[in-house]
C-alpha cells in the first residue's frame, strides 16, 4: 500500500487538538518506510504563515508559529526514541512572503515546498485549518493531488466533533452581532413597545445564532476596533472630498462634446492585507477619480481607469495610504506608494 | 415648498431613469443591461424616498430600504451566475 519512496513526508501543521496524534502517525509512517526506501526517510513539518502576520502588525504570530514547530520537533524525536538516526526531522515556516488567502494559495506554497525538497507524500492533520472558519482542507487536498503528490489524512481520533457554528464564535462576537441586529430592528420598528422589544429580541437571537460563526470571522478586539473606528471617522471626510472631486471630473468628461477619455486597464499590487482593508480600498478606488476596481486577486488590484490623470492619482497612492492609516495606524501609512515601489508607472495590460 | 421641491426632483429622477431604459433596451451585452438596470433600480429607490418625504409617508422608506437590498442582490446574483453558471456565492 505504501509507495516505495514514501519515506519523505510533508506535514503541514497548525494549532489543533489532533496535532499530537498526527505527528505520532507521521513519524510511524516515515519510520516504517525508512528501511524499504533507498533514500533517507525524512519528515518536514511546515507551518504556512501568511505575510499579513509577518509584516509587523502581529509580530507575535511568527513567534507562536516557531514555538509550535519547536514543540512538534520535540514530539517527533520523542516518538522516534532510540531510532532517531533513521528519520530526519525538519521544520519550516512557509508562505511568509505571500498573502495566503484561498485554499489554492496554501496549496501553491505547500506544493512548491514539497518540490524544492523532493517530498512526494503529504500527511494532513484532519483538523488542520489555518484559515479559521472557512473549510480549507478538502479543496486544499484536491489541489495538491492534482499537483501529483500523495495526500492522506492522518487516521486520528477527533477529540470532539463540535458543531461548525459554535466552533469559533466567542461570546463577545455573539453579543456584538445580537446588539447590531437588535438595534437595526428597533430602528426599523420605530418604537420601544413591549411587542417590538420581544419580537426584536427573538429575531436578533435567531440571526445571531445562525450567523454567529459566519459574519465575524476574527476575534473582536474592542480597543483596536475602537481605534480603527475613530480613524475611519477621519477617513470619511477625506473620502467624501475625493468623491466630490472625482464626480466633477467625470461630469466634465461625460458632458464634454468630444468625450475626452482614454480608458485603460492597469494592475498594481496594493500594500494592504486581510479582507476588510482590501474591500475598503477597492470600494474607495471605485468611488474616486476615474478609476474602477475590476478584479482583486490576493493583493493584486486590476483597475480600469478612465483618463490619464486618474492613473496618475492612483499610482500616487494617497488613497492606499489613507486606508492603511485607518486599519494599521500611522506607522503603516509611511510605506512607499505603488509608483515608488515599482520604480515605474505600474505595468499596463 | 419643500414638498414641491422634492416632487420636482422625483419627477426629474424618473426622467433620468427613462434614459437608463434606453440602455437596457439597446444592450448590447448582458453586463451592459445589468449596469443600466442597477442605475434604474437606484433611481427607483431614490424616487420612493423622495416621495416618502414629499407626501409625508414615512412607511415608504422601509419599502425603499428593502428595494435597495433587492437591487444590490440582483447585481451580485447575476454577476455570480454569469461567471459560475449556477454556482451561488
Amino acid at each position, binding site marked *: 500500500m505504501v509507495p516505495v519512496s514514501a519515506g519523505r513526508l510533508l506535514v503541514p501543521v497548525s494549532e489543533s487538538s489532533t496535532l499530537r496524534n498526527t505527528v505520532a502517525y507521521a513519524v510511524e509512517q516515515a519510520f516504517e518506510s525508512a528501511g524499504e526506501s533507498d533514500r533517507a526517510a525524512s519528515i518536514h513539518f511546515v507551518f504556512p504563515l501568511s505575510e499579513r502576520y509577518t509584516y509587523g502588525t502581529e509580530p507575535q504570530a511568527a513567534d507562536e508559529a516557531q514555538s509550535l514547530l519547536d514543540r512538534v520537533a520535540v514530539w517527533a524525536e520523542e516518538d522516534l526514541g532510540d531510532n532517531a538516526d533513521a528519520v530526519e526531522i525538519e521544520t519550516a515556516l512557509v508562505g511568509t512572503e505571500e498573502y495566503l488567502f484561498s485554499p489554492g494559495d496554501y496549496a501553491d506554497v505547500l506544493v512548491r515546498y514539497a518540490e524544492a525538497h523532493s517530498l512526494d507524500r503529504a500527511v494532513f492533520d484532519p483538523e488542520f485549518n489555518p484559515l479559521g472558519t472557512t473549510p480549507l482542507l478538502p479543496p486544499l487536498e484536491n489541489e495538491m493531488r492534482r499537483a501529483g503528490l500523495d495526500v492522506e489524512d492522518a487516521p486520528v481520533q477527533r477529540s470532539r466533533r463540535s458543531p461548525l457554528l459554535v466552533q469559533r464564535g466567542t461570546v463577545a462576537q455573539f453579543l456584538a452581532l445580537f446588539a447590531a441586529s437588535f438595534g437595526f430592528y428597533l430602528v426599523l420598528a420605530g418604537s420601544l413597545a413591549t411587542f417590538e422589544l420581544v419580537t426584536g429580541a427573538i429575531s436578533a437571537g435567531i440571526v445571531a445564532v445562525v450567523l454567529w460563526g459566519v459574519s465575524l470571522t476574527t476575534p473582536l478586539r474592542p480597543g483596536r476596533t475602537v481605534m480603527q473606528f475613530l480613524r475611519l471617522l477621519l477617513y470619511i471626510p477625506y473620502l467624501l472630498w475625493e468623491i466630490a472631486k472625482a464626480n466633477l471630473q467625470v461630469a466634465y468628461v461625460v458632458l464634454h462634446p468630444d468625450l475626452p*477619455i*482614454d480608458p485603460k486597464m492597469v494592475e498594481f499590487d496594493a500594500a494592504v492585507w486581510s479582507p476588510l482593508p482590501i474591500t475598503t480600498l477597492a470600494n474607495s478606488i471605485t468611488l474616486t477619480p476615474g478609476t474602477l476596481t*475590476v478584479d482583486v486577486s490576493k493583493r493584486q488590484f486590476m483597475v480600469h481607469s478612465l483618463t490619464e490623470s486618474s492613473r496618475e492619482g492612483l499610482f500616487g497612492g494617497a488613497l492606499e495610504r489613507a486606508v492603511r492609516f485607518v486599519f494599521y495606524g500611522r506607522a503603516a501609512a509611511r510605506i512607499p506608494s505603488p509608483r515608488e515601489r515599482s520604480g515605474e508607472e505600474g505595468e499596463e495590460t | 415648498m419643500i414638498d414641491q421641491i422634492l416632487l420636482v426632483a422625483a419627477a426629474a*429622477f424618473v426622467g*433620468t431613469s427613462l434614459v437608463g431604459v434606453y440602455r437596457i433596451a439597446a444592450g448590447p451585452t448582458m453586463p451592459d443591461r445589468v*449596469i*443600466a438596470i442597477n442605475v434604474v433600480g437606484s433611481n427607483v429607490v431614490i424616487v420612493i424616498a423622495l416621495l416618502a418625504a414629499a407626501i409625508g409617508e414615512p412607511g415608504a422608506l422601509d419599502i425603499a430600504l428593502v428595494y*435597495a437590498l433587492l437591487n*444590490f442582490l440582483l447585481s451580485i446574483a447575476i454577476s455570480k451566475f*454569469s461567471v459560475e453558471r449556477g454556482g451561488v456565492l
Partner: protein
Amino acid sequence: MTPTEILVLVLAAGGVFFSLVAAVGLVRMPDLYTRAHSSSKSETLGAVLALAAVAIAFGTQLSTIKAVLLLVFMFLTNPTAAHAITRASAEQGIEPWTTEDDDP
C-alpha cells in the same frame, strides 16, 4: 425661503444633476467598463445627495435615521455592485475599449 428649503433645494438639484450625468454617461460611453464608471460614481453621489435632501426634509424624526441608513447602504453597495458586474465581465473575457479602437 427658509435655510432648510434652500439646503433641500441645493441637495436635490445636485442629486438630479449627477443622476443626469450618470444617465448621459450610460448612453454616451463606448463600452461597459466606462459605463460602469458613470453608474458607480455619479449615480452614487446623486443618490447620496438626494437621500440627504430627504433626511433633511424629514427634520428630526425616526425617518431621518432611516434615510441616513438608506444613504449609507447605497454608498456601500453601489460601488460593490459595479465591481461585481465588471469582474464578471472581465472573467467572461470582454475586452475593454481603448482609444485605438474605432469611434464609439
